[in-house]
């Protein structure tokens, strides 16, 4: 399943305000289909907020106001008549802290499938399929009905990935997916994300520049200007790391590269 070329996500003049505070301003961004894009930058510059605008999780935040244009697959997703259920099925999201629901491993995956009206007969196959894709099947196939909360941190995170994959998303958003994991689990999850290249459009927020270096095709650097987060540099990974156009982005990438 090779995605057609073109931009999966286009963001124009995005601005996000929490009450009177502008946390993101003047953001222009595009992500190519089937590529892994890393979002890097110091803490608190709006990277996670940016991810949540893409699947409209910002709707959950009281007083949050989003303006600008967000296009996903040539659809304006910031319009009021966007089908949010569909949008969130097509855009999977995985958070920093691995947090499956307090139910069995199987139900964690099957419940969203039922919600999105996948045929009942397919559900078992899809559960297995997504666990295989997340590299978790061999570890849990004997105990699918056990509570998901008894898995290790790395396993839980892969279960969360499997849960999102089961819905057949076209885009996956990762919000620092490895930073709460131990180094070994972190490597496993990282390899898993790298393996999506070519099949899914992946956006990953990471504080680990060497991780970005290892798995990303493109990179966008976020920075705070006048108390507002924005993107100061983006492009193919090699170019941005070797010849950044923005001096601050260059210093940030150099300083941490070690």
């Amino acid at each position, binding site marked *: 399943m090779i995605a057609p070329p073109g931009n999966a996500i286009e963001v124009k003049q995005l601005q996000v305000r929490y009450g009177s505070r502008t946390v993101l301003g003047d953001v222009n961004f595009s992500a190519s289909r089937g590529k892994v894009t890393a979002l890097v930058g110091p803490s608190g510059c709006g990277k996670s907020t940016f991810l949540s605008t893409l699947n409209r999780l910002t*709707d959950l935040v009281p007083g949050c106001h989003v303006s600008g244009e967000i296009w996903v697959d040539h659809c304006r997703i910031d319009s009021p008549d966007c089908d949010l259920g569909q949008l969130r099925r097509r855009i999977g999201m995985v958070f920093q802290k691995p947090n499956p629901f307090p139910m069995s491993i199987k139900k964690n995956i099957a*419940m969203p499938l039922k919600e999105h009206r996948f045929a009942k007969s397919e559900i078992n196959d899809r559960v297995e399929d997504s666990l295989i894709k997340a590299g978790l099947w061999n570890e849990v196939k004997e105990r699918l009905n056990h509570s998901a909360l008894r898995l290790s941190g790395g396993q839980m995170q892969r279960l969360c990935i499997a849960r999102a994959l089961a819905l057949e998303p076209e885009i996956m958003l990762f919000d620092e997916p490895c930073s709460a994991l131990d180094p070994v689990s972190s490597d496993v999850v990282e390899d898993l994300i790298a393996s999506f290249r070519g099949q899914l459009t992946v956006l990953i927020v990471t504080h680990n520049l060497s991780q970005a270096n290892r798995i990303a095709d493109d990179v966008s650097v976020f920075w705070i200007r006048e108390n507002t987060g924005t993107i100061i540099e983006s492009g193919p990974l090699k170019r941005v790391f070797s010849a950044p156009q923005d001096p601050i982005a260059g210093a940030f990438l150099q300083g941490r590269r070690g």
Partner: protein
Amino acid sequence: MSEGSLGKTKTPLYSMFDVVFKVIGWGCAAILIGAFLWMMASLIAKGGGRLTAEFFSGEPTNFGRSGGIGTVLISTGLVLGICLCLSLPLGILTAAWLSETVLQRRRLRFCITRSLDLLAAVPSIVFGLFGMVFFCQTLQMGFSILSGGLTLALMILPIVVTTVYAAFESIPSYIRLNSTALGLSKTTTLWRLLLPAAAPGVMVGTVLGVSRAIAETAALIFTSGYVTRMPESVFDSGRTMSVHIYDLAVNVSGGESSAAATALVLMAVLFSFNLVAAGISRFYYNDSAAV
């Protein structure tokens, strides 16, 4: 400096006051403990001997002086059942609304929480007045278990809402976040994720509410009535344990031992409810009081 000389820096006056304070404080505690023990002792002395198996199953005879409280227990159960049938669903749905619609309708939310606070402040005798006119007369339910149960439902609604609301609020936010990110509808989120997670809180709310309801007398005298025989349906009048105690103590001379025995049963039920509620709170929420 030796320890001895440090010890002397305490003035004798100070330590004398400390002792006086200690005595006064413990004296106060002793009054409360003593009164409680006196009460328990007199209840056991008067009614302990009546607590046999027949007492729990038999029907009251000779106006309750002899016989058991079997029919009273059944009436109590029915009143509580009716009370929960209304207050539990209404309370849970209200708590869900309060906790899941923070985004909009601030003013309505404020009005509703305030009026629940006011409802909690209504004295029970006033609930009795209201229940008598509204349920018994206006809605023509008469003196019946139904009227009594519904009156109590209004009374315990604020308790149920507060407790269940606290349980909803203690659900970690990641559950809502993940659920939304997976595109699950609000309905699914509520039924499949939030309600199961709030189940212990719902149980605590139920137990606290039932405790308040089962202890109630004033609101019931003129709504569910005095009748001691076996209720045939919820439209029949029936007396709860508390009303039974009141009636025996005030209107039936020689009813003391039955009243004391009934009071012991009532206290035993209440204490075990209290333990259950505390146990659930401690186990699930790591504190001793959920409210």
